[in-house]
């Protein structure tokens, strides 16, 4: 089997604060194959965004990457000197951000901020850069791209800005696209348009994608495989079909059940949503053992003392839960 395009091993990101070390990401592993889309889902504080920023060593201080390897096209990105990493950022691995309004520089026209990237990374001249930008704007579904080039971000709608953000990410033909909540700030009909666009681009360009989101619906529509994170650790990784039809980890199951469904009748006698009691643990002094144990309906005494290790339970399906076949390390 060919090695995956990207593999993250034992990634740890810590925030050194006055009160102690916050373990925002505490031993995360996942991999993305060529052309594959991996969805990373989790609630706020699960470490999903920090772990994806850490791939490119973009974690803001006081965060620090404490351990781990990020193998991309045969090289460890975490061991690379900053200058070489700069050539990978935006070029081989590109990012699409959550807030299209702030990810574009308001004082430059669309054409000049996109052109700068091409001149910097690809050393293209002005004419060649413009031709490439026009073809990309066309590709991301922007009508009348020649006019848009001369416009400024504030003249564009949110959906349009996100299309520009995607075009910017595609400028250098990246092998991997990191999209962090790319549609959260958008309205549903615009979200549908952007998701369609991303799905279409992935197919046409054969690009791999890491899609970070809190929205189960979005990953169901987009992802080939899904990784569920909770309190800085991976709970479960499976193909999209398996994760939704046969989730193993109690957190995944509870999360899926707790969402109201648009295709379910709630009229008649009152039905309540199954909920997860309690709150995620603080990551300053995370509990020993499984992070979910305190809220888990199936937790055993062992779960509170033993840290589960991600274990393959079926082909392509791995779970970190002692109850469901994982090995554990006594804390």
């Amino acid at each position, binding site marked *: 089997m060919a090695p995956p395009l990207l593999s993250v091993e034992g990634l740890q990101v810590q925030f050194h604060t006055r009160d102690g070390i916050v373990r925002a990401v505490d031993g995360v592993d996942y991999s993305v194959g060529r052309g594959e889309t991996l969805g990373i889902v989790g*609630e*706020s504080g699960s470490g999903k965004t920090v772990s994806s920023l850490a791939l490119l060593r973009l974690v803001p201080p006081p965060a620090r990457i404490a351990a781990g390897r990020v193998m991309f096209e045969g090289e460890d990105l975490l061991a690379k000197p900053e200058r070489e990493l700069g050539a990978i950022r935006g070029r081989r691995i590109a990012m699409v951000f959550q807030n299209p309004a702030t990810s574009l520089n308001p004082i430059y026209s669309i054409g000049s901020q996109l052109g700068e990237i091409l001149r910097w990374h690809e050393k293209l001249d002005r004419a060649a850069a413009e031709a490439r930008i026009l073809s990309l704007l066309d590709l991301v579904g922007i009508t009348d791209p020649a006019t848009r080039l001369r416009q400024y971000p504030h003249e564009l*709608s949110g*959906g*349009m800005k996100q299309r520009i953000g995607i075009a910017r990410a595609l400028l250098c033909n990246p092998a991997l696209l990191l999209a962090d909540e790319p549609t959260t700030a958008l*309205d*549903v*009909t*615009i*979200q*549908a*348009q952007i*998701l*369609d666009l991303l799905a279409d681009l992935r197919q046409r360009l054969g690009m791999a994608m890491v899609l970070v989101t*809190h*929205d*189960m*619906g*979005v990953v*169901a*529509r987009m992802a080939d495989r899904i990784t569920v994170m909770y309190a800085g650790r991976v709970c479960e990784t499976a193909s*999209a*079909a398996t994760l*939704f*039809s046969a989730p193993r980890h109690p957190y995944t199951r*509870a*999360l*899926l059940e*707790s*969402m*109201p*469904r*648009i*295709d*379910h*009748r*709630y*009229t008649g006698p*009152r039905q*309540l*949503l*199954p*909920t*997860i009691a309690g*709150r995620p643990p603080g990551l300053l002094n995370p509990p020993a053992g499984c992070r979910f144990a305190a809220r888990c309906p199936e937790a055993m005494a062992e779960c509170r003392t033993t840290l589960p290790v991600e274990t393959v339970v079926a082909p392509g399906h791995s779970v970190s839960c002692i109850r469901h076949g994982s090995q554990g390390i006594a804390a």
Partner: protein
Amino acid sequence: MSAALLEVENLSKHYPVLRRGILLQRQTAAIRAVDDVSFRLQAGETLGLVGESGCGKTTTARAILNLVTPSSGAVRFEGRDILPVFRKGERSEVLGIRRGLQYVFQDPYLSLNPRWTIGETLREPLRIHWPEREAEWPTRIDALLRMVGLEPQHAWRYPHEFSGGQRQRVGIARALAVEPRLLILDEPVSSLDISVRAQILNLLAELQDGLGLAYLYISHDLSSVRFISTHVAVMYLGKLVEMAPVDALFAAAGHHYTRALLSAIPVPDPGAAQSRIHLQGEVPSALRRPTGCPFHPRCAAALPVCRSEEPALIDIGPGHRLACHNPA
């Protein structure tokens, strides 16, 4: 039909677009944020008001509560025309209305005074409405906190010590303090995490059953609307385009915009064969509102008449009203 708890009739809120002159401003146009909206809500029911950002759903709610002054129209609460009461400003009458309908805000981080403890926040409505019953306040505050799933000792804490979900519970408790019959819930769960969302939705459902409350539930999240609502109204560019009992709307939406909205929701099920309706373009700015049906530029089923004539909201079934020349 029994008298409705809340009756909104031809409610409009227009904002003048002003151009600044040398000394005075002159009006050059008007943004019709809410345009001729009418609906009724019975006691104990929930009307889900849905639409995308800028469709006027929040302005509608704020106009009902007189947080913005409506340009025209009437709001009747328990059969009483309430806008003239706000205009007159007779304090005891205004308080009487404020006791009937309350508002829960979207952002639990902004809706609590950061300098007040939770107890102080909950004491405020009691101080305003029942100043003579001061002795009962502490027990009432305890009861309110318990009612929303918090502990009495939380009364001594400040908002910043709470999570978003807990703050939203406080916001709900504050609204319940005056014993209202109607709660206007403005996106109460959209800023919360999935697992917390379910907790708050359940809380709202239980409170409704226990206290016989009616809700006006404003949201862009159709799955939570489906869960909590008995009826749904869809807004587009300040207009009500469709209104129906919840199951009827989700099963047989008549308006092409409603259908597009429903199909745009990503369903958490990769196998779901969703027939997707691809809406072209974006919601036009309220300044450049299309003539005729406001939705016609994005509508696949638009007829020539849609361009020139605005469709009226008419009954097409039991409780189902629709504004479309060429229904699906």
